[in-house]
């Protein structure tokens, strides 16, 4: 249940994918964003300030740390969670750099995909072993499809 600190977030223009779920994020000015997703539309407030991002949504506040060293990651105790790597947008798998059962370190390149005429490298969300490798070179894949899983070794 601690997937919150292991989310894969992909942005393409106003389209954002979080763990395979797609959202349309329409900026309304002054920090307001209208987000349309599977559960309908609502307006959020979001502010990037230094390395933190503040979000107010549906009567809840969220503060995200966008990185910069684990020492500052206040949620680090919760790290672990899902190692699934999914397709951020509909597109093509260009190359697969790992094999089933291969041990990887967090941040290692796993595959290169192409979508909207741009190539993108997907990296290991954590240390572990590659399992359920479903991606194949040259394959066309829908957004959200699981490409592989990095499980605890």
């Amino acid at each position, binding site marked *: *249940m*601690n997937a*919150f*600190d*292991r*989310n*894969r*977030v*992909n*942005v*393409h223009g106003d389209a*954002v994918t*979080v*763990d395979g*779920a797609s*959202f349309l*994020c329409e*900026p309304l000015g002054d*920090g307001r*964003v209208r*987000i349309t*997703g599977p*559960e309908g539309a609502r307006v*959020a*407030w*979001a*502010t*990037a*300030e230094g390395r*933190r*991002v*503040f*979000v*107010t*949504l*549906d*009567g*809840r*506040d*969220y*503060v*995200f*740390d*966008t*990185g910069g060293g684990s020492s*500052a*990651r*206040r*949620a680090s105790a*919760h790290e672990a969670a899902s190692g699934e790597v999914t397709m*951020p*947008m509909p597109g093509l798998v260009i190359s697969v750099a790992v094999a089933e059962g291969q041990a990887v370190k967090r941040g290692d390149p796993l595959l290169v995909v192409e*979508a*909207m005429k*741009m190539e*993108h490298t*997907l*990296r290991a*969300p*954590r240390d572990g072993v590659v399992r359920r490798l479903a991606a194949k070179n040259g394959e066309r894949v829908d957004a959200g499809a699981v490409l592989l899983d990095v499980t605890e070794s």
Partner: protein
Amino acid sequence: MFRKVLVANRGEIACRVIGTLREHGIGSVAVYSDADAGAVHARRADEAVRIGPAEPRASYLNIEAIVEAARASGAEAIHPGYGFLSENAAFAEAVEKAGLVFIGPTPGQSRGFGDKRLAREAARKAGVPIVPGYEARSEVADRQLATEAGRLGYPVVLKAALGGGGKGMTVVTSDSDLIASAPSARRVALGAFGDGSLYLEKLVEHPRHVEVQLVGNGRGDAVHFFERECSLQRRHQKVLEETRSPGASEKTRLAMAEAAVALARAVQYRGAGTVEFLLAPDEKFYFLEVNTRLQVEHPVTELLTGHDLVWWQLVVAAETTLVTEQSAVQARGHAVEVRVYAEDPASDFLPQAGRLARVVWPRLPFVRVDAGVESGSDVPLHYDPILAKIAAWGPDRETAWARLAAALDETVVHGVVTNIDFLRALTRDPELVAGRFDTTTLESGVIDRYRERAGEPAPAVALAAAAVAEPARAAGGAPAPTRAAADPFATIGNWGRS
């Protein structure tokens, strides 16, 4: 009425006092420390005078600098707000000595109610119930103490006779317990107050904290503004206040108000003040102390009665008279308020400092916001981290609470972590909404329940919002419209929720 008044405070309370001055066409003078040169209160007043460096001792507690600022600016009176010098008798004396008016009680009243023993004595004389107790000079034998404790009935609180609430208090439950604790209590009392006298007091279990607002004319008349329920506290710090109190019958509430007025009349109290009571589950109430200032939580009383307490303070100070009589102070409906702090509920409510990149206060019918900051404001480390108070009124308690909850949902403070998310949880906690709580409730479950909720994973939609977040436009500076993910096709990766 005064033509110009200096406000010897900062933040939301300074802004609030300036508002009333403006409404009545009275000139306003703000004071500010170096940390507050760009603060809202200093920009809102007609004039603003620097009084020293950031450290409170050198600025907002600097009696000499403040009196000089008043003199130099031509102010005729000083409003002290709350905190800082508001209950400092020496300050009131210095103000009067400079030929200015101190908007508050006489120095003698500040001093008298600041001395717990004198305060208790004044209450007793005015016929206000006090917690059954026994004062023992340091030479009184432990045996004698035990006899008196037995008479009061255990559990009993053992404390320094000159001490206030909180500090150095021990709860003892038996003779042996008492005899074991007495020597150390005596040492603490001697060390802290230079007097080893002890005070035994019957422990009121599961009390509520209920207080009565009043204004006295300094000549023996006083008017009350009903009570406030202030039981929801964290480490003796009030978090949510409401009026009327859901914890007492109308009969008890009015008895408390009458007791408070009797005390104010007996001492010829001048200005706004609050008489605090402990209210036991059996609806017996006991005098606790008198706060000789305008309190943080006064807006709920204003919403309930429609009266402007700062205006009452000004009228008493300028004319030694009350704005109107008791019969014109009527309670209607219910009002509830929370205090917005720059503090992190996830880190044991650690105070936070920094720049408020974005501040959006709610604007809803029946909602009142008293704020001391806006987008771009700095929250300095040196002062109490209160940012604002948000209050809601309703024709009944349920409506008022629901309106406050809705207002908090519409409140946006980004850039510094605040307790707003915690306050939202409070206003929707079923036990609190039902009015079932006492002074121990917040720390004995509500906070834990909140921590659990706050530990839940952020929903995907929140991350989506975060992914397209942009920096707020800097106040006066150039905007930096770079998204968190400037690359139009970017995997932002693994964000930690801080």
